């Protein structure tokens, strides 16, 4: 029995060393899991007229509750709103100092919704994989897997996922779905893009939208600032923004171009892929423990 145990410890030690070697080998560089040719939307802030029709279209298509104040109520634009559990998208109004020839201040309207990141932090964070990035580009939430831990909300750099805090047992995480059921059908368009009267939201393949954005900037350089928000932010997002005012004036954050999951995933995988480190540690500790034990036995004998 004792011999067996000693043997096992040795074996464990070898296994641990082996695991260490494979682990070191498999801890390769992090790779983006972004879909190759996703859909996206290009929001042109210089076109948006703040009519809130996108909010209305979104509400109807996603069968959300009717809003407390009707969509034609433009007084709501006096406050800064955020998407919440019952509104996947909201439009805010900013006065950035831009004015017309008569010195009237001109508003800039900003539509906010899930950016559908190329490498979404929420998808990386969700422990049960309830959030996934689809090939279409949509970041999809599957309520049947969700446990309601809200780690996705902690992870999201855009602070988009909202939560049904007043549902005692079955709260859901709520966010823009990119109308994934519509866009995955031939010719399907997200509700907000379909209803927008001025095509402030252009729907298409992300690669094509980037080209279109550059074309628009080239055709009218005086109109746009030279930045496509979402092209590089957090490794790229499916939703892109063009603007005629500086983005930080309308509450866009300066974000790093590194995909957010890169660091935590690199750490997780280099430490734990194939569980090499726990196995190695287990092996080492078994050897240590066995040695300590045999030493004690010897002392006891002498």
């Amino acid at each position, binding site marked *: 029995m004792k011999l067996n145990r000693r043997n096992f410890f040795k074996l464990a030690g070898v296994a641990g060393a082996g695991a260490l070697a494979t682990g070191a080998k498999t801890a390769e560089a992090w790779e983006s899991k972004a879909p190759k040719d996703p859909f996206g939307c290009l929001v042109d802030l210089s076109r948006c007229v703040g009519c809130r029709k996108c909010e209305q279209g979104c509400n109807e298509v996603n069968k959300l509750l009717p809003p407390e104040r009707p969509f034609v109520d433009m007084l709501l634009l006096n406050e800064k709103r955020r998407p919440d559990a019952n509104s996947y998208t909201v439009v805010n109004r900013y006065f950035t100092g831009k004015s017309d020839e008569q010195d009237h201040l001109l508003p800039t309207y900003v539509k906010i919704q899930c950016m559908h990141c190329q490498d979404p932090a929420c998808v990386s964070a969700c422990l049960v994989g309830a959030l996934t990035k689809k090939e279409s580009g949509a970041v999809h939430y599957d309520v049947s897997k969700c446990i309601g831990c809200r780690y996705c909300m902690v992870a999201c750099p855009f602070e988009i996922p909202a939560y049904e805090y007043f549902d005692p047992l079955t*709260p859901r995480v709520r966010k823009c779905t990119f109308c994934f059921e519509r866009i995955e059908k031939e010719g399907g368009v997200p509700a907000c893009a379909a209803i927008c009267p001025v095509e402030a939201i252009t729907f298409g393949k992300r690669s094509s939208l980037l080209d279109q954005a550059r074309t628009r900037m080239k055709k009218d350089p005086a109109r746009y600032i030279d930045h496509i928000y979402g092209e590089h932010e957090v490794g790229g997002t499916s939703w892109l923004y063009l603007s005629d005012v500086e983005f930080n004036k309308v509450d866009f954050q300066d974000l790093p171009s590194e995909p957010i999951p890169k660091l935590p995933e690199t750490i997780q995988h280099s430490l734990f892929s194939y569980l090499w480190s726990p196995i190695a540690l287990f092996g080492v500790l078994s050897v240590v423990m066995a040695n300590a034990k045999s030493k004690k036995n010897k002392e006891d004998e002498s």
Partner: protein
Amino acid sequence: MSHSPSATHSKFFTPGVWVMLVFMFIGAVAVAARFTWGIGSVTNLDNSHPWGLWIGIDVATGVALAAGGFTTSFLAHIIGRHHYEVIVRPAILTAMLGYTFVVLGLLVDIGRTWAIWKPIFSWNTNSALFEVAMCVLVYLHVLYFEFAPTVGEGIGGRVKTLVTAVTDKIMWIFIILGVVLSCMHQSSLGTLMLIAPTKLHPLWYTPLLPLLFLTSAIAVGFPMVVFETTLVSSSLKLDSEMKILTPLTRITIFILGLYMVLKVGDLVYRDVLGYLLDGSTQSNSFLVELGFGVILPWLLLITPGVRKSRGMLFFTCCLIVGGVVLNRINVFLVGYHSPYAQTSYFPAIGEIVVTAGLIAALMFLYRLAVTFLPVLSASKQEVSS
């Protein structure tokens, strides 16, 4: 000191126990409200502050402070410092109760409590939280297994024989597993916040966060043992165990020192010292954490007089424990900055009473266990002394 562990059989319903029961009752009321009207009805959580006191204290701090379990069993069982064995049982008891309450806290905090089992079948190995969840789940059962012999002894008779027969031969696996799992999830708790680089304050956001969490957890292990042993021996009027505790904290000098070097070195290396004196809540909180939770207790610990004085040692260990508690609160709450929040987060009464109720329940069960099960080894003080 050579006493074998025995039940204290002290008087159970002391005024302190009644106070705990009151706290437990109030907490239970808040929990009932949470399960009737939702998390929003008892907390100040919102879309900008998805994690609050329950995650910061009940879960993150709970896990850290339960580190005494694996650090003492490593010391006594794995590297064979057997004279420390007297503190293993109480430490394992604390860890077991600690983790039980981590899970209870989680059950209150997660929205879909009934779905808590889902991570067992639905895996996302990219997620640090998945690893934490799995480790906590397994480790909780490891702890129950490690504590089983104590329960067996307490019941005695055939149960004891049976439990000993089952656990004796394979206990070593569980002891090692306990250490391995602890190292894994103590560090991964630090990885959790690495998913929010734009939200976590630069004083805390560092790729070293997992390592800092692990070292601080190991560093707080023995101080936590000192803390609770001193409390328990005072409360139950037991002999002081300074002969064990003084050498124990000598080990802490090295680990806490390592933590201090890592933490300060990281600040210097990342060139974020400028944030230290900007007067913000965050920088003040960091200064308190580092100054009173790490540097001051370390300076105290290297003084031999402090290690030998029961009162000073208790005070020092309180500082270390407080430092780690504050660190976890800082990382999960104070340092968490929402880019769009209109208000800042402060826990609601409902959150505080649930947390207080859980801690009271933990202490209640601890007292229940040491009263009726062979956990503590110290002998009763003579009445005259």
